[in-house]
C-alpha cells in the first residue's frame, strides 16, 4: 500500500489529554483521566490493566466508536471529535479493522459472507475473491460456506481476523482477542494476528490480559483506574 503522505504523517494515532466521564444517577464517574499517547505507523501496542480499569472504554474512544468528554483523538490525520457520525463511519470503513473478544460474527451469514461484509460496505467490486483469499490465509479455505454456529470458537475468531484485515485497514483494534479461547487456540490465533499484522504493515492496538501476547507487541501501556502509563518510557525517563 503506497501512501504519499506517509512522511508527513508518521504518527498514526495521537491522543491528547483524553478524559471520559459518564453521568450516573447521583454523580458522574470518571473512567479515563488525562490520557495522552502517540502511536506511530506500523507499531504494535498492547494495553494491559485490571478488569474495570477502563481498557475497553479507551479502545472505543481511540477507534472513534464514541466521542470523549474532553481532549482529542487524532486518527490517521483526522480529529475524531470533529467528524460527524457518518464521516467517522467512512473513516472506519476505509482504515480501521476490529477484532472483538466475543467474535461478533453475524449468525445468519456464512464465514465468507461475514468477511465480505466490510468489503461491500466499502463499495468494493468482486469482494468474493478477496474473502476467499483471506479465509484461505487464516486456514479456513474449506469452511467458506459454514455459518458461525458450525465453527469452533477459535475458528470463529479466525474468521473475525480475516474480516478485520479484509478492507486493508491501516490500523487494527483488538479487544482481548484471545480472551474467550483456550491457551493453545489463543496462541494460534494471536500468532495469526501478529503475522498478518506484520505482512500488511498494519498498526495494531490491542487490549489483553495475556502477558505473553502483550510481550510480543512493540510497546506496552498500563492502565489503572483510568490513568495510562507506559512503564518502559517511564524507565527511560528515569534513566
Amino acid at each position, binding site marked *: 500500500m503506497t501512501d504519499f503522505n506517509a512522511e508527513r504523517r508518521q504518527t498514526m494515532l495521537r491522543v491528547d489529554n483524553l478524559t471520559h466521564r459518564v453521568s450516573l444517577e447521583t454523580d458522574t464517574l470518571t473512567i479515563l483521566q488525562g490520557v495522552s499517547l502517540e502511536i506511530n505507523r506500523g507499531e504494535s501496542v498492547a494495553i494491559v490493566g485490571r478488569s474495570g480499569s477502563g481498557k*475497553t472504554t479507551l479502545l472505543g474512544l481511540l477507534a472513534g*466508536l464514541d466521542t470523549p468528554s474532553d481532549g482529542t483523538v487524532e486518527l490517521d490525520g483526522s480529529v475524531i471529535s470533529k467528524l460527524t457520525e457518518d464521516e467517522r463511519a467512512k473513516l472506519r*470503513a476505509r482504515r480501521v479493522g*476490529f477484532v472483538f*473478544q466475543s467474535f461478533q460474527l453475524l449468525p*445468519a451469514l456464512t464465514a465468507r459472507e461475514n468477511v465480505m461484509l466490510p468489503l*461491500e460496505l466499502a*463499495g468494493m467490486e468482486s469482494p468474493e475473491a478477496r474473502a476467499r483469499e483471506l479465509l484461505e490465509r487464516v486456514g479456513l479455505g474449506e469452511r467458506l460456506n459454514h455459518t458461525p*454456529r458450525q465453527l469452533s470458537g477459535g475458528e470463529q475468531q479466525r474468521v473475525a481476523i480475516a474480516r478485520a484485515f479484509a478492507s486493508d485497514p491501516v490500523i487494527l483494534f483488538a479487544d482481548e482477542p484471545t480472551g474467550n479461547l483456550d491457551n493453545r487456540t489463543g496462541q494460534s490465533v494471536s500468532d495469526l494476528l501478529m503475522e498478518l499484522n506484520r505482512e500488511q504493515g498494519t498498526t495494531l492496538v490491542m487490549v489483553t490480559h495475556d502477558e505473553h501476547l502483550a510481550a510480543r507487541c512493540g510497546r506496552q501501556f498500563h492502565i489503572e483506574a483510568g490513568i495510562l502509563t507506559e512503564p518502559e518510557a517511564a524507565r527511560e525517563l528515569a534513566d
Partner: protein
Amino acid sequence: MAAASKLMSVRRDWRERDVRVVLAALIIAVATVATIALFASQLQRTLVSSASSFLAADRQLEAENGREIPGEWLTEAQSRGLETGRMVEFSTMVFGSGGFQLVSVKAVSDEYPLRGEIEVQDAADAPRKLVGSGPKPGEVWINPRLLRLLELNIGDSLEVGNLNLRVSGLLIREPDGGFRLSSLAPRIMIHADDVPSTGVIQEGSRVEYVYLFAGDDGALEGYYQWLQSRLEPSHEWEGVRDGETFSRSLERAESFLLLGGSLAVLLAAVAVAVASRQYALSQRDTVALLKTLGVRSRGIGKLYLRRLALWGLTGIVGGLLVALPLFWLLTRLLSNVLERPVEFYLDPAALAPALLTALVSLFAFAYPPIRRLRDVPAMRVLRSQPGEGGREALPDFAIAIIAVFGLVWLYAGELSLVAALLGGLVLLLGALGLLGWLLVATLRRVRGGGNAWRLALVGLYRHRRASLSQMAVFAMTLMLAATLVLVRSSLLDDWQAQLPPDAPNHFLINIAPDAVEEVSAFWQERGQPLNQQYPMVRGRLTELNGRPVKEAVSKDERVGALNRELNLTWMSTLPTDNEIIQGQWFDPGQTEGVSVEAELAERLGLSLGDRLTFTIGSEKVTESITSIRTVQWDSMRPNFYMAFPPEGGLTDMPATWITSFYLPTDKKTALNDFSRQFPTISVLEIDHIIDRIQQIVRQVTQAIEAILALILAAALVVMAAVVSATLRDRQREGALLRTLGGRQSLLVRSTMLEFALLGGFAGVLGVVAAEAAVWALQFRMFEGNFSWHWQVVLPVPLISAVVLALFGRWQLSPVLSVSPMLLLRRLE
C-alpha cells in the same frame, strides 16, 4: 433445584421480551375474539329487535279467514310468559267535512306495539315524535293526506261506520307498516275496543285479525310447538326471519361477523405462534444450562408447562379486561347509531370462543416449540449445535393448522368458510415456496456494495429463511385482512345496489286497463316516470297435476302462498332482475305455459312440465310450467310468483294494473291531485319502509366497519410483533455494520428497502390469496358475482410495502441512536 426454579421464576419471565410478545398476542387474541363475539351477539339481538319492530312483535299470527282465534290460544301464550297484543285490519269508507274516502283501518289493542314505536305528529306543523301505544278509545289517528282529502283539522271528528271519532293525531309511521296488498287505501288507526261499535265488521266482511307475541326465544318456540297442530291453513305464523325483505340482509351481516371472528382467531393464532417460537429459541441456552445443573427433561417439561398455563391465565384475564371496555364502547356507538339506548348485554356464551381460542392457540401453537425444549442437548452450553430450528417445525405446523381450522369451523359452523380460507392459505404457501426458490435462484447472484438496493437484495437473500417466514406471516395477515375488506365491500355494494336512493317507494294498484295510459301521462308530466306496469289477476293455486293442491303438497310444506290469493300476471319480456334457471322464457306469440318463481317451485316440489290449475273467480285455468325463474324480492318492484305469456291463459280474466315508482318526499303533495283525479286507484306508500331498510343497512354497515377496524388493528399488531421478533438480531447487525463503517443513511435506506420488498411481495401474495378465498366464499356464502377488485389489489401491496418500510425504520432507530461501543461491551 431451588436455584433452577429461581431461574425459571415467573417474575424473571415477565422481563423477557418474547414473553411479553406472547402475552400481548394472547391478550389481543382473547380481546378481539371476545369483543367480536360479544358484539356479534349484541348486534344480532339488536338487529332482531330492530327487525322485530317490523312486526311490532317477535312473532305474528295472522288469521285471514275473517275469524278471531280461540281465546284459549292467547291465554296459553300468556301462561307461557309471552306478551300478547291484537290488531284488526279492514277497509271502509270514512266521512269527514270534505267528503268521503276509502281508508284502510288498523284497530289496535292497548299493548300494541310490543316491539318498536309509532311515529306521530300532534299537528301538521308539530314535530314528529315516537310513542309506545296507539290512540285511546274514541280517538283516531289519520294519514296526513286525509287532512286535505277530507278537509279535516286536528280535533275534528271523523265518521267511521256508526261511530264518530275525534282526530287526535297524524299517523306518520307504524312500526309494522308492512308491505301488504290488502292495505291499499290511506291508513287510519283506532283503538280495537271501538271496532264493535262502528258496526263495520259483519259476517263475510274482509277482515284480517293479527295477533302479536313477544318474549324470549325459548318461550316463543315452545308456544309455536304447542300451536302448530292447532293452526288452520288460513293461519299464518310469521317470525322476523321469515320476512323476505330483511332476512337476507340479516343473514349476510351474521355471516360477515362470523367471518370476521374466524379471521380474528386465525390472526391471533399466528401471533401466538410467531412469538412463542421466538421465545422457545431464546430459551435454549437457559434449558441447556438447567440440564447441566442436573434438571431432567421431565422436570423441564413440567416447568414450561406450568409457565404456559400461567400465560394462558394472564392472556384470558388481560384479554377480557381489554375486551369489556371495548365492547362497552361499541355498544355505546351502536346506541348512538340507532339513536336509542341499547341494553348492555353480556352473553356468557359469547365468551366461550375467546377462551377456546386462547387455549387452542397456546396448546397448538405455543406448546410444540416449547415442548421441544426438553430435547435441547446440555452440550449446547459449551457450543451451540448446528442445524437447530426449522425442519422439525413441520409436523407442529400441520397440527396447528388442523387445530386452528377446527376452531374456525367450530366457531363459524361453516365448512365452506373453512375450506375457502384453507384453500387460500394453501395457495399462498405454494406461491411462497415458489417465491423462496426464485429468491434463492436470482438473488444469490446479486453482490452487495455501497448501493442501498444491492445491500437490500443481499440482505433478503442472506436472511432468506427469516425473510420467507416473515413474508409468510405478513402475507397471511394481509390475506385475512384483505378477505375481510373485500367481503365487506361486496356486501355493501350489494346492499346499495338493492336499494339505490331512487328505489321505487310508491306502488299504484288497481289501475283500470283503460286508465293505464292516463296514469302514466300524469306522472310523466310531473317528472316522475313510472316503472313498467303489469296486469294483475288474483287467483288461487288449487290443483297440481290434476290433484287438489292441499293433498299434493305435504302439510309441513304448506306455504303461505297457498293460503292466500296469488297475484298472477302476464308479460312478454322477462324483467331485467329476474333470471331463468330452468326451461325457457316465452317465445313471442306463445300462448301456453306459465313461469314459476324458483323458491316457491322448490318448496312445492314443482318441476318443468307440471300442470298447475288456478281458480280465478269462478273460472279455472290450467297451464304447464315452461320455466322457473328467480325474483329479486327486495327490489321494491312488483314481483310475481306466476307469470303467463301475453296471449296466454289469463287474457280473458278481469285484470287491474300495478306499477311502482320513485316519488321524493317534497313532491308527495302530488298524490293528493292524483287521488282526486283517479279516485279508484290505490296508492301504497312504502317510503317509510324503505327509509327504515336503508337505516338498518347503514347501522349494519357501521357495525361491520367498526369490527373491520378492530381486526385491521389486530393485523397491524401481529405484523409489528413479527417485525420486532427479529429486533435483537437486527440491532446487533446494525451496530456491527456501523462499526465496520456502514453509513447511517445507507443502513436506513437498505433496511427500508429490504422491508419494502418484503412488504410488497407479501402484499401481492396476500391479495391474490384473498381474491381466491373471496371467490370461493362468494360462491357459497354471499351472493354476487366475482370480479377482480382492483381498488384493493393495487393499493394493498403498495400500502404494505410502505407500512413495512416504516416498521423497518422504526425498528432501526434504536440501532442508530445507540453507540457502536455496545459491540465492545458484548451487545446482548
